[in-house]
């Protein structure tokens, strides 16, 4: 496997400088789009106001060492393992898409800036695109809420689909370009990736920056007792719970067993 960008430069079609300029420009578009998104939606303002409200109903304070531990836990669980997904299919699809995207983007940048001829980097580039495509198409045809919950056909597209559609287009055309070498697919690949990075203000792209912060905040609320105003986790065999809620020992006994799954036994598909 060879570096397709190196082949492009060697053929004289695009200069090395132009490629690097493009990557930097796309990076700036992402940063600018995210900042505009945050300012326009006032999401940061809402997030911090919400955090203040939660802190007011906290039952204990968290030390900075505990906060650091929570950050580490968030990164290792919610970020690296996409643990926020309770549905295993959605989780698997997101892992494929996320790691595919990261590997693809990182190897693209390496290949463009260093013009390496390493076969391993080129292989990883292709594998990243493949993983992104597999996870993305799985989501697009099967898992997307419009299709699985609202019963819409897979080809019904909304504005909210800009992110996934441009990701799919980018990975598909990258793979076609890699396999066939045809310049048409290169142009389509560039068009798709330009669309992806320039529409950050209107698409779901920026969730990759916000979600880790939200996941960390959720852990903080569980650690400091505010729990988003949800009721506490009760230990049904403890005497304190028995004296506070006498219905529990009266109807369920002193040591209630695990009742198994009720409505969660089957996946909801009742539209």
């Amino acid at each position: 496997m060879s570096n397709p960008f190196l082949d492009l430069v060697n053929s004289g079609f695009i200069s090395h400088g132009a490629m690097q300029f493009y990557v930097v420009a796309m990076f700036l578009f992402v940063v600018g789009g995210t900042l505009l998104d945050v300012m326009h939606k006032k999401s940061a303002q809402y997030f911090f106001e919400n955090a203040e409200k939660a802190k007011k109903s906290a039952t204990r304070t968290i030390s900075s060492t505990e906060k650091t531990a929570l950050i580490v836990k968030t990164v290792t669980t919610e970020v690296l393992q996409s643990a926020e997904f309770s549905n295993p299919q959605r989780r698997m699809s997101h892992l494929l898409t996320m790691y595919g995207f990261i590997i693809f983007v990182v190897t693209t940048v390496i290949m463009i800036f260093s013009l390496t001829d390493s076969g391993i980097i080129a292989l990883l580039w292709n594998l990243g695109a493949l993983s992104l495509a597999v996870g993305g198409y799985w989501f697009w045809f099967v898992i997307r809420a419009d299709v699985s919950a609202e019963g819409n056909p897979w080809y019904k597209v909304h504005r909210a689909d800009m992110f996934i559609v441009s990701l799919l287009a980018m990975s598909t055309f990258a793979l076609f370009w890699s396999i066939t070498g045809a310049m048409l697919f290169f142009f389509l690949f560039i068009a798709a990736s330009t669309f992806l990075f320039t529409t950050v203000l209107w698409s779901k792209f920026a969730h990759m920056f916000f979600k880790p912060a939200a996941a960390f905040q959720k852990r903080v609320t569980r650690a400091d007792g505010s729990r988003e105003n949800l009721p506490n986790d009760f230990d049904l065999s403890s005497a304190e719970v028995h004296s506070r809620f006498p219905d529990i020992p009266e109807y369920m006994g002193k040591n209630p067993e695990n009742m198994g799954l009720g409505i969660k036994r089957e996946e909801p598909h009742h539209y």
Partner: protein
Amino acid sequence: MPTFVYMTRCDGCGHCVDICPSDIMHIDPVNRRAYNIEPNMCWECYSCVKACPHHAIDVRGYADFAPLGSSVRVVRDEEKGTIAWRIKFRNGEKDMELLAPITTKPWGKFIPDLAEVDGPTDEMRSSHLLFNEPEYIRKDEGDLHTLESNGQKLKEGVYY
């Protein structure tokens, strides 16, 4: 009072869309989050609240137990077999937790079969417990009335 979704906690999984009996929970095509399209038609059955894996849906409480601005949050834990409520007033003076059982046997097991239980005796029918019940429920003339026992059949689908 109708349901509402915390858009920041929702991830658009569609469980509430699937379970709403009134078909009013849908996914917003712009933000790809769930929202209640017709609060007037909400049955307040709490199906979506219980089904949401991220506890992203709440129901505004009735004014007799939760004045305006209160937070009413409920967690249905199937494996423990309990339902837990937490009601917090906006002035901070009330922070109440309630816990009640929802099942005393494992789900799907020990469901009583009507055919295995004896029907009511004449003595039960004339007692205060069954006196006011309709005759076709009390099995006065034999078994319960069904479509088949009345010579009818159920046609599927809409045919008018």
